[in-house]
């Protein structure tokens, strides 16, 4: 198992290298550069800037330089935020996004799994229709609608929650719900589907024939297999959610990574774009590894060598 994990970690290096290479050349093909602006800069200033960021060198030299820095885990200076490195920006904003994403996903998992289990136990009943109706609503209601709606009701009308910001627990409630709503809906559906799939298996009939209590049948015999689809979903979802959500962070003015990422793409902040892409890739790869390991814990038939 340890060997398997080490092997998986080592195998991410070429993957990251490929991602770095592709992103590097793609963003440079896109028209526009970091220092274009409406007012043309004086040539001498432009020259100093180009020299400082090695824009005067041939492209392959810039590429090699970037990869060399990357090998030292240095993502380079930001082109837009003067005197700040990409590492610094990520280190500062990622914990905020992580906190928001973590709570949102925890919220989504708890409510999604409970709703999914209840729906599957009362399959095709009013409880089922209620939760699945809610889930459809959750999936089809975009966060740029839900967010402002919550603000309107709880901040402006009832005045019980702050409109925006990220400094106390009350500040966190609405962003967490807004971000978590869609995930809750997905998880509820996946749980229900996974549970129903297991409930119809022969071994559940065996469990019943053995005279086990309904509670044991659900908790011990159904849940483990029924939650496998949720686990598969949670890995990539976690990677996506903790690296920040532009919409939610913008609506509630949360100083997270999501806003930087979009901003940097619009600004052609080359190093910042590459830094966030690579950072996201690392988390995604790591989470997929975690999912695979959790799988072996849930399903004894799955073994990695």
């Amino acid at each position, binding site marked *: 198992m340890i060997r398997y994990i080490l092997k998986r970690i080592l195998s991410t290096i070429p993957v990251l290298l490929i991602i770095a290479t592709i992103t590097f050349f793609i963003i440079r093909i896109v028209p526009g550069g970091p220092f274009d602006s409406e007012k043309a800069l004086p040539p001498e200033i432009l020259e100093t800037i180009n020299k400082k960021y090695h824009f005067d060198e041939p492209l392959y030299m810039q590429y090699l330089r970037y990869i060399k820095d990357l090998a030292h885990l240095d993502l380079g200076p930001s082109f837009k935020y003067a005197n700040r490195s990409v590492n610094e920006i990520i280190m500062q904003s990622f914990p905020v996004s992580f906190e928001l994403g973590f709570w949102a996903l925890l919220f989504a998992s708890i409510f999604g799994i409970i709703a999914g289990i209840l729906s599957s136990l009362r399959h095709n009943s009013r409880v089922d229709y209620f939760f699945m109706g809610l889930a459809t609503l959750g999936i089809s209601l975009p966060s740029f609608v839900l967010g402002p709606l919550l603000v309107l009701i709880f901040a402006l009308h009832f005045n019980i929650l702050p409109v925006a910001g990220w400094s106390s627990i009350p500040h966190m409630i609405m962003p967490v719900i807004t971000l978590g709503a869609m995930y809750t809906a997905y998880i509820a559906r996946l749980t229900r589907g996974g549970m129903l799939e297991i409930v119809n298996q*022969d071994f559940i*009939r*065996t469990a*019943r*024939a*053995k*005279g*086990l209590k309904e509670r044991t049948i659900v908790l011990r*015999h159904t849940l483990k297999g029924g939650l496998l689809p949720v686990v598969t979903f949670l890995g990539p979802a976690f990677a996506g959610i903790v690296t920040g959500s532009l919409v939610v962070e913008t609506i509630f003015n949360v100083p997270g990574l999501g806003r930087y990422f979009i901003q940097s793409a619009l600004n052609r902040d080359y190093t910042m774009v590459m830094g966030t892409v690579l950072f996201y890739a690392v988390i995604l790869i790591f989470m997929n590894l975690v999912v695979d390991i959790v799988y072996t814990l849930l*399903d004894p038939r799955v073994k990695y060598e």
Partner: protein
Amino acid sequence: MNILEVKNLKNYFHTRDGIVKAVDDVSFHVAKGETLGVVGESGSGKSVTHLAYLGLLPSPPSKIESGNVHFQGKDLLHMDLESLRKLRGNKISMIFQDPMTSLNPFLSIKTQLMETILTHTNISEQDAYKKSVEGLIQVGIPAADKRIESYPHELSGGMRQRVMIAMALLNNPELLIADEPTTALDVTIQAGVLELIDNLKKQKGMSVILITHDLGVVAGLTDRIIVMYAGQIKEEASTFDIFNTPKHPYTKALLQSVPRLDTTKGNRLLSIPGLPPDLAKPPTGCRFHPRCPEKIDKCDKEEPQLKEVGNCKVSCHLY
């Protein structure tokens, strides 16, 4: 004394395509210590009959329409669910056809055996563990104290079915229902598993219902046989009479489809010409008449009743 009495049991499935009359007025009994064979083509309602009174069918679509089922004098169809649960896996155990899918792949053999004991008996985990290992030894599983730690996928089909049998017998049931216990197994190990069930039955003095679509399987093991077709009983007789003086044309046809070793053509398997009927729209009169080689005039008009003919019961207009 009869340990199980089933009277006029009807169990229908209410599906989108109509009402499937899977069990339609079935009556039989099992005497204490007896082995009853239940035979019939696949789809004839053998499994549903027994799953129904044990409360093991999904409802909806399944519904018991009428009838009476008594186990040791207790009314199974009208008792509360909790009392029925306490009988299942305890006084009445069941073994299923496919050991590959009937054990939970997510749980170890140990967990699945121990919980069967612990849910019915108030003993310590250590004692339950000991009993579980003993159960595995009893069904001939080598290195039982190691095997008990395995997961189902780590065992062969035959071993899994032995685990299923061990699990069914952990609480010393009075009645064992074995639903095609060897159908999914390799031919070479079928005899061994049947012999095991027979030996354990004699050892423990329990009653057995042995369900199969293959008359060859029950030959040496059963005392009495009921023959089912399209949700109804067509014939009921001692095993000897079924094999030597079969009455119903359907029973005769089933006997012809038994693979025999003594024929010159060697091992052959004939199936009965024609298809089993759609149980949502069963044929009028005798349900077997469209396929019956001895059909007479009234067969498609009048439904025959199960009546005593000599030592047997048969539902056929020829008698």
